[in-house]
């Protein structure tokens, strides 16, 4: 018997012994929902801004201009394959190494879902969002969220996500409160998050 | 309340050290038309044993408790902590005893045990007990009445109706005073640190009197205040409610 089998069987055996006589069935009470929001998209914008992210609302026609305006002049920009907006001069990621990504100042992506109550953007790293690394290493993340992608709360978002994919839930720029509980925005992830909310 | 048999569970600490609190409960309830019995077989709720881990030692004490109060419709006690012990811990001790009769007796008695403010507000339905107490008072909600029993604002409702009384808010009122039974000696340094902070908050209010529903907590708070010669008295809620012009 291999080491692994021994440990596995022993742990499972201990669990079964520990639970001997304990009823297995347990009804999980349903998690309560929040009261309906008057304006889900406005709520989302407000809550994202609460994290000191930049939130701008725009029309689809204005999007390319607003993306360009969000990027500082001369910024080296990386974008994922399949991005639905034109970013002139940007490099399309084709498997850049971490060190190469470190040479970029900004990244522009789309998202999968926006969660209004918590001000959260969820990426599932599909087309238009790209590999996890590209939204992590550059210091500025410009994220395009369509109004019809915004849901009210966490329980509305989970069923829309495919658990087989990796996900990154983003709620404002990276932050720490490790020094005297004093919040500092921007540690390792992008220090600036710009959300373009497209009507 | 006619025909209701009510027993006073005075608690061991009040019996031995704070008899005035027990007398105040008798005076107060008599004024409200409730004649209480004092079953003389009562001793202690066994909380000191249970909370220190001596369950076997708690068994005969809980048995004595159950025997003393059997047959009463209501048991009223001027202690949130002792009421909590009877309501929430006696079942543990009874299970430990392996005596099915004790388990049943405890489960029948436990819901009939009321802390004083619960008894007044919930059972008697009064918040104005006709008291007069012309002093500035601050109220410390004790942990077990607050979090184990959930007495909520009942003591506040009662104090609000006391004529002459000025109630001042205690900063960080809901924080533990640091008594904690044997915690006060097993972890004396931490207990004293907590008690010192509580005493500081009491002094900050400028109140003449700090009131609570538990004399064990007041022994601790009062012990610190006395050592500091703070000039603030500790008085049990029952004694304020019993006071008249």
């Amino acid at each position, binding site marked *: 018997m291999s080491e692994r089998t021994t440990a596995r069987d022993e742990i499972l055996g201990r669990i079964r012994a520990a639970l001997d006589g304990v009823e297995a069935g347990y009804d999980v009470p349903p998690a309560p929902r*929040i009261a309906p929001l008057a304006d889900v998209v406005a709520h989302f914008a407000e809550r994202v801004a609460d*994290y000191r992210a930049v939130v701008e609302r725009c029309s689809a026609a204005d999007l390319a201009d607003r993306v360009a305006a969000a990027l500082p002049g001369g910024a080296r920009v990386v974008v994922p394959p399949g991005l639905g907006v034109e970013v002139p001069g940007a490099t399309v990621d084709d498997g850049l190494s971490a060190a190469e990504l470190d040479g970029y100042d900004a990244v522009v992506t789309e998202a999968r879902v926006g969660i209004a109550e918590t001000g959260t953007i969820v990426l599932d790293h599909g087309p238009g969002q790209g590999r996890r690394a590209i939204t992590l290493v550059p210091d500025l993340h410009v994220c395009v969220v369509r109004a019809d992608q915004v849901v009210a709360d966490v329980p509305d978002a989970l069923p829309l996500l495919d658990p087989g994919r990796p996900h990154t839930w983003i709620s404002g720029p990276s932050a720490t409160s490790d020094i005297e509980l004093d919040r500092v925005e921007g540690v390792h992830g992008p220090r600036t998050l710009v959300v373009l909310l497209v009507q | 309340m006619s025909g209701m048999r009510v027993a006073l569970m005075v608690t061991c600490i009040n019996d031995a050290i704070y008899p005035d609190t027990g007398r105040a409960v008798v005076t107060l309830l008599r004024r409200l038309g409730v004649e209480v019995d004092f079953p003389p077989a009562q001793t202690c709720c066994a909380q000191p044993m249970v909370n220190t881990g001596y369950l076997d030692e708690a068994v005969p004490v809980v048995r004595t408790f159950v025997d003393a109060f059997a047959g009463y419709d209501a048991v009223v006690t001027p202690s949130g902590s002792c009421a909590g012990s009877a309501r929430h811990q006696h079942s543990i001790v009874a299970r430990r005893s392996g005596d099915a009769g004790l388990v049943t007796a405890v489960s029948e008695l436990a819901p009939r045990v009321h802390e004083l403010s619960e008894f007044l507000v919930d059972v008697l339905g009064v918040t104005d007990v006709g008291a007069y107490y012309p002093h500035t008072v601050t109220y410390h909600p004790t942990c077990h009445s607050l979090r184990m029993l959930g007495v909520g604002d009942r003591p506040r409702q009662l104090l609000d109706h006391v004529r002459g009384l000025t109630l001042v808010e205690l900063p960080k009122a809901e924080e533990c005073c640091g008594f904690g039974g044997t915690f006060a000696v097993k972890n004396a340094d931490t207990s004293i640190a907590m008690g010192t902070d509580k005493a500081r908050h009491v002094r900050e209010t400028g109140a003449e009197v700090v009131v609570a529903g538990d004399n064990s907590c007041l022994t601790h708070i009062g012990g610190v205040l006395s050592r500091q010669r703070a000039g603030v008295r500790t008085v049990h809620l029952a004694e304020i409610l019993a006071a008249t012009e």
Partner: protein
Amino acid sequence: MSGTFVGMPKFPVAARAALGDAQLRHNLAHATATIRAKRQRLVDEVNANCDWEALRLAGAGVKESALRSLDEHLVRLEETLTANGATVHWARDAAEANAIVATVARRHGVDEVVKVKSMVTQEIGLNEALAAEGIAAWETDLAELIVQLGDDLPSHILVPAIHRNRAEIREIFLAEMGRAGRPAPAGLTDEPRVLAAAARAHLREKFLRAKVAVSGANFAVAETGTLVVVESEGNGRMCLTLPEVLVSVVGIEKVVSTWDQLDPMLRLLPRSSTGERMNPYTSTWSGVTPGDGPQEVHVVLLDNGRTNALADEVGRQALRCIRCSACLNVCPVYERVGGHAYGSVYPGPIGAILNPLLKGVGQDKQTDSLPYASSLCGACFEVCPVRIDIPSVLVDLRAQVVDAHRGGVPSAEALAFKGAAVALSDARKLGLGERLAGPGLRLARRAGVIPGLSRWASARDLPPGPRESFRAWWKRTDGGRDE
């Protein structure tokens, strides 16, 4: 202080030392008050458009239901993880888990790994075990970095350097960063923003070159083979994304049944923990994703005493814990003595129950002292997002400690309680004792100190003794009718 908890003194002794440290008490009071207020604001906000108590009940239910058929959930998790391309390992104890991680690291020929903040890898002493194999384990969470560089011990689950203030952190960075890699910049100030920037620069070179990362997990979803890490700084994402190899050490109690059950957990955890509606970053991954992130993924399922806790009828609920640390922040004992006094990576109220449950009682005095490190005020239970009734578990563990010491020579305390049991079982005997209480107290007050009461009387006066017990008054006056 060196970076291990082994051989710590009993809680009261460690607490006394901590209470004497004015700076520590100031840091703790400030930090816990801040975080308590943040949490409370959010709980109030939830109650304005939802129901926090119902959310807690749901959270407790998700974890409880997973625990009650833990064997089935773990077997399922192993299947789904394996199907997703991960390699699943099982470890009975710390040594086995450490050996598994070391073997993976050695196979890739690395002499360093980067780490996501993880309680479980601290519990098993992974960094020390890897160091013994010549492998450096770099902590990348800012607070863990402060602790590691300072050769210190964590004192809080969420903010392990809560006992350090900004000036101390600046000194640690200036003195130690250069020895571990990129030095702190000249002119480093003690502004949190500047200190965080120094950490960013120091750690970035480590992230970019690391081949192997080690993480824990906040949740493991059995149905889908998904691990979840909740974090703030982005160091977690760096470790989970950039290296080629990822090893996650996961306590067996981290499992939840389904993907959808991440709600309510993801609504409860950040609000209870950092006092935020949502933490900045949450990563989920299900084994290997071709072309994205680590292409070799290991998961180590760890027991290390969890099955002991599971076997404890009352204590089992402690395995619901999601390590939010809300109980630490509201605990009046923790606020005054800090985390080190608990002698474990799990401090505070949850540590006072989890350590004895994992290790068992009756074996060492330090562990046996933990269930007594509480005034039983109940504030911890009130805030726990998964409704762990910590006071009841504490009381039960105290009974287990006492029971473990029955049979030998009884202690003075045991004799006192045996005596009390006799006196309190018979009101006639009690009445006799009470006649001595009044004079006894009056004597003690006059004499100042009497043996056994010295610990009480060091800072607290005794109450005056009454002339007459209540019982005697009742008898003398017929319940006041003859007065």
